[in-house]
């Protein structure tokens, strides 16, 4: 349905749009980010520097970006999808060539005033493109192999570039997010069953072949996978951090040690305590109540997004809202599972809480799309 088909009288105009924002989501995002400020203040040893001040500034900027984007009709964003995707793809290639290298991976572009991660931008533009694609594609063709190949290419190109940076965490997010949109768009479930079955089969085959004459990988590669899956095998390396993270988290108990009283994080036991491992500090200081509370806040954000998506008659709007929700969900669930020792450590930050400019801004842009979709719902 083209936007011209909408009845203009049903869509709010001007500043009236502000009244139609998805306010619960705005409040929830602010609450979660507030949690983040508290934690950054704590891990800095009770100081606004070096993390809280820039984080608050970026949040303010992000909030402004989100509201501004919400004011722009959602059909504009749909028309921007292809351009945005191509731009992100070009930037990813640029990173590969002129990017800045840090800690052995090349992910950043130096923009003078800030470092920019094109892979973060790709998270949104990929979802936008796929949503626009399925908005355009008649439902009858959705499950035709040819029409499945196209979105697969859309996903594969950035996934390959990001994986070669190397950034496994973002790659997983891209592929899962893209897959989720395809699933929501109504691609026949048999395709998903085949892919999941195939992956399980392949992994099983690779591991079953271990120790036999026809083993697929080299021995040291198997050993690396072993330590990746079970870091306790490397008690002085990766396992040390996971052990310390679990102690910090578990020792929080019901109510935690109290704000700024966490010993584990204070004594520098934890790595990346202001980024990927910030949840352990939160769980140590605020206990189960704090950690579970954060989980509930996240879940509520998802619920409000799903509710908005389901009640939205515009297909692009629905898909983009669900896509953002799924990506957001993957962010926090992978991070939490990682620090609780349920998943291997793959460098995914805790959304809105972990310190980081690009991630914060990108999330706010994503929620800007969700808000725009909500405001410009056909009523």
């Amino acid at each position, binding site marked *: *349905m083209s936007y011209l088909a909408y009845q203009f009288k049903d869509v709010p105009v001007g500043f009236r749009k502000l009244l139609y924002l998805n306010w619960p989501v705005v409040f929830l995002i602010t609450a979660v980010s507030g949690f983040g400020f508290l934690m950054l203040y704590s891990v800095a040893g009770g100081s606004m520097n070096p993390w809280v001040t820039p984080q608050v500034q970026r949040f303010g900027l992000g909030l402004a970006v989100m509201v501004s984007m919400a004011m722009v009709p959602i059909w504009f964003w749909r028309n921007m999808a292809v351009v945005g995707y191509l731009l992100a793809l070009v930037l990813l290639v640029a990173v590969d060539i002129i990017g800045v290298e840090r800690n052995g991976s090349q992910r950043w572009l130096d923009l003078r005033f800030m470092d920019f991660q094109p892979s973060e931008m790709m998270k949104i533009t990929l979802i936008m493109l796929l949503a626009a694609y399925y908005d*355009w*594609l*008649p*439902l*009858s063709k959705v499950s035709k192999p040819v029409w499945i190949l196209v979105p697969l290419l859309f996903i594969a190109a950035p996934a390959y570039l990001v994986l070669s940076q190397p950034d496994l965490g973002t790659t997983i997010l891209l592929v899962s997010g893209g897959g*989720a949109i395809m*699933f*929501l*768009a*109504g691609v026949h479930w048999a395709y998903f069953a085949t892919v999941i079955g195939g992956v399980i089969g392949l992994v099983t085959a690779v591991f079953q072949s271990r120790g036999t004459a026809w083993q697929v990988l080299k021995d040291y590669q198997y050993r690396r996978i072993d330590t990746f899956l079970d870091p306790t095998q490397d*008690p*002085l390396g990766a396992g*040390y951090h996971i*052990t*310390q993270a*679990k*102690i*910090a*988290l*578990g*020792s*929080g*108990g*019901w109510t935690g040690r109290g704000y700024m009283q966490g*010993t*584990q994080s204070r*004594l*520098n*036991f934890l790595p990346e305590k202001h980024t990927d491992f910030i949840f352990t500090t939160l*769980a*140590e200081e605020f*206990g*189960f109540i704090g*950690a*579970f509370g954060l*989980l509930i806040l*996240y*879940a509520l954000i*998802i*619920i409000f997004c*799903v509710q908005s*998506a*389901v009640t939205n*008659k515009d*297909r692009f709007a*629905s*898909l983009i809202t*669900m896509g953002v929700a*799924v990506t957001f*969900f993957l962010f926090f*669930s992978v991070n*939490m*599972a990682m620090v*609780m020792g*349920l998943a291997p450590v793959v460098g995914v930050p805790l959304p809105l809480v972990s310190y980081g400019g690009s991630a914060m801004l990108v999330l706010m842009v994503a929620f800007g799309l969700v808000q725009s979709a909500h405001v410009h719902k056909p009523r």
Partner: protein
Amino acid sequence: MKKGPKETEEGARRLSRRAMLLGSAQAAIVATLGARMASMQVEQADTFRMLAEENRINIGLIPPARGLVYDINGVVLADNEQHYSITMTREGAGNVDEVLARLDRIIALEPERLEKAREELKARSPFVPVTVAERISWEDVARVTVNAPALPGVVAELGRSRIYPQGSDMAHVVGYVGPVSDYDLSQIDDQDPLLQIPRFQIGKTMVENRLERELRGTAGTKRVEVNAAGRVMRELDRVEGIPGADVQLTVDARLQNYIQARLDGESAAAVVIDVTNGDVVGIGSAPSYDPNVFVTGISTTLWNELNERDVETRLHRRPLAAKTVQGTYPPGSTFKMVTALAALEDGQIEADDTVRCVGHTDVFDVRFHCWRRSGHGNMNLNESLKQSCDVYYYDIAQRVGIDKIAAMGRKLGLGERHELPMSAIRSGLMPDKAWKREERGEDWRIGDTVNASIGQGYVSTSPLQLAVMTARIATGRAVKPRLVRSIDGIEEPSGAGESLGLNENNLRRIRAAMYDVSNHSRGTAYRTRIAAQEYRMAGKTGTSQVRRITADERARGVTRNSDLPWNRRDHALFVSFAPADNPKYAVAVVVEHGGGGSTAAAPIARDVMLQALYGGTPPLSAYPSASRGAIQAQQRRLEPLLREIRPGRDTDEA
């Protein structure tokens, strides 16, 4: 593309359905995360709280106990001694400098160590304990323990260190361990994490070094809880390492002790081989040093002293060199058996053929002298060996040719690197025509053969090789020296060896001549014979020149050894086996610059042989009556140098 309203509706319905499906899956995952949180923070909270609140987990390596080294009777040659050391971790200490300063006030630390520790603390991971002080007294341990609250991260640890109870006796055999150095790490390709432990002890030389893999063992790991003060509260779990394998040597510590005592004051080497199985039961080198000083790190002064760095006071006695395998000397007359055997085997001579010795032989225009200028007269094999006539060997060597002599020398173990677990073993040299052409680019000359026939010129041998040669002559078998009897209780193959394939008649003639050397009144070693009937000894003296006597010196008449400076005097050698009729031991002795073989080396060889045969101090009746008085005086003199050695832990299963 145009879509009908029907299709749009169907798309929306399907999307809603799938959204709900995806939503439920997400809800399930959120529930899992929540459950995990609850299990960790509510159910297991106490466990984690305990770990975190008072205690923290440290993961460390447990160095395995290094394997012990025993002698043939189970006497401990290298032991592990327990001692206390003070270690410290960066994460435990917090403020490293302050804690170190406090520690320094409580127990005085060596400034050098303090500086080193400070560097190490900075460089290593926060949880790696760094040794601040070693081998500290019990009082200091108590002082540190009492002051524990003021010394976070500081722990008194029970450690193990190597100790060599036999002191300098075994230094040239067992060697020593020392803290692993960066140089060591760059030299060895070894991924063992143990080597990353600061000051971990590894074998530096000799058996300790050559059997490092066997002796070291495998590291274990332990996870310990330490409290906020850094004190170890308890061990969580522990995977024991595998202790290093015990090694039993063939050396007899008591005999070794006697050898070192007997060689004391000389620069000499003595090797005793059990000819029945190749066991090296004694392998002494003098002067020696105390290996214990190397274990914790040696002072520069002592190191320079041992290396004779000071040119002024240098004695050229090389205490750090194991002369038994690292020293090579011209074998002198002890080589004559090789020349004779080569000639006999080649059929060039019969034992009764005689050569007339007039005191010299002329080869073209060069005159080669016999040691007795007046000549020996008519010499057959027996007489020539007995009286060590040189001219006889000049003559027969020219008939056989150097290549056959060299082949015989090699057959008897000369010029060969006998693989014992000792460091820097030298192979000596058994020259032949091909060697000279290759190495020197010159043709072999007859004069070279003449020189080689009496073990001079290019020929050079180590005391070990001479002992092997004697053992092979005594048995006719390819006796192979063996220093390690068993590793971890598993016996090493015997060195008895196969038959050399030599004519037994020829060997018998050589042995008979060697018997006469020591037991015939005209023999060069008659005065140092063994009188005990059942232990009669066969031997051969050797005196090898280290310099040419210049024409000028000859004119001035300086040919007596005692008139020369020590380091230009002749080497004294003696090889022997006994009992002559049923050989048990072969002994080779080299006394550097000792003068004559019969006066300097033979008495030592005889005394060592008797010690080995009697398994202790022999009765005076074993000595010829003429020398008993002197021997008694000598025994009294050596008594304070001999230690009482009793077998410790017996590893011999059989």
